[in-house]
């Protein structure tokens, strides 16, 4: 029995296995946003009808900002959740959609067919998406009434997470 080989071998193998086992539990898709706890980047965009919407004008109430696109399957799935939430929090929170790498036309058709839960703002050069560090659609940012990012949801927005966060802000 060669003690050195055993000890050195186990010193390499055991931590490796432990880290792999821990690594398993991370979701490779969720990346903690550095914006959480910080003021959300300002934006001023226009909606489908050309009306300007600026973040500054929305403050005073919590704001839900959702980056989405018509080519994104998850966005279609989460659409009813957002519709429902926008209805429940009407007058208490703002819901704003920012179009992520999509054209106005498909967006317009989508909204006409499935209903809107808030304005769909056009971000043609992804300027706002970059400022928010969007990795893909959908991503949802929940802001308090002062415009501070409280929470970021990557992927499909969860009803409980959304309502719990909003309730805690109201």
């Amino acid at each position, binding site marked *: 029995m060669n003690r050195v080989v055993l000890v050195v071998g186990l010193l390499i193998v055991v931590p490796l296995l432990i880290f792999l086992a821990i690594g398993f539990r991370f979701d490779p898709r969720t990346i903690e946003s550095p914006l959480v706890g910080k003021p959300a980047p300002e934006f001023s965009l226009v909606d489908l009808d050309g009306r300007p919407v600026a973040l500054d004008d929305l403050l005073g109430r919590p704001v839900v900002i959702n980056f989405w696109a018509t080519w994104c399957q998850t966005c279609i799935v989460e659409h009813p959740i957002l519709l429902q939430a926008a209805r429940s929090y009407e007058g208490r929170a703002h819901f704003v959609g920012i179009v992520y790498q999509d054209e106005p036309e498909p967006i317009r058709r989508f909204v006409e067919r499935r209903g809107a839960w808030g304005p769909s703002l056009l971000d043609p050069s992804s300027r706002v998406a970059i400022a928010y560090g969007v990795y*893909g659609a959908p991503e949802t940012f929940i802001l308090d009434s002062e415009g501070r990012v409280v929470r970021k949801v990557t992927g499909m927005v969860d009803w409980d997470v959304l309502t719990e966060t909003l309730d805690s802000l109201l």
Partner: protein
Amino acid sequence: MVLAILVASLGPAAGQGVIEERDRVLLGEPAGRPLAGEELRQATEAVTSLMRCPVCQGLSVADSHTPSAIAMKAKAEALLAAGYSSAQVLIYFESSYGEFIRLEPRPEGFNLVVWILPGVALLIGLGLVWMRIRRRPAAPREAEKPEEDLEAYRRRVREEIGR
């Protein structure tokens, strides 16, 4: 803030290549000098090759031509053109995308592990090789030197011919 709104409301065409109020708040004064032309192109290429394209599989922003990467390239170019340094550009993107955006872990704190460990392994390996070499039996016998040359030569001939 007013300036930002003004600039943004000019519409999509004005969106790219513009330094906003927020960028100044975030980054402070430009640490480099404004770049232009070929120099700007090269600096943009260099800094975006250090950034991960957010929607790709392990590609850099420089290598990718997805819409996201193109937009990020434009932003990086605008910052460099305004005189911000490459380090500041990286800080800018890191402040919204997180450390994940850097393709090279920042060499500080715990991240030093990934930078230092390979070197440590190489040194340990060199040590082991050295020990092996040193362990050889007594030094060459000076008196037999010529004969040894002959022997080495014979051995080489044997190797080359027959094996």
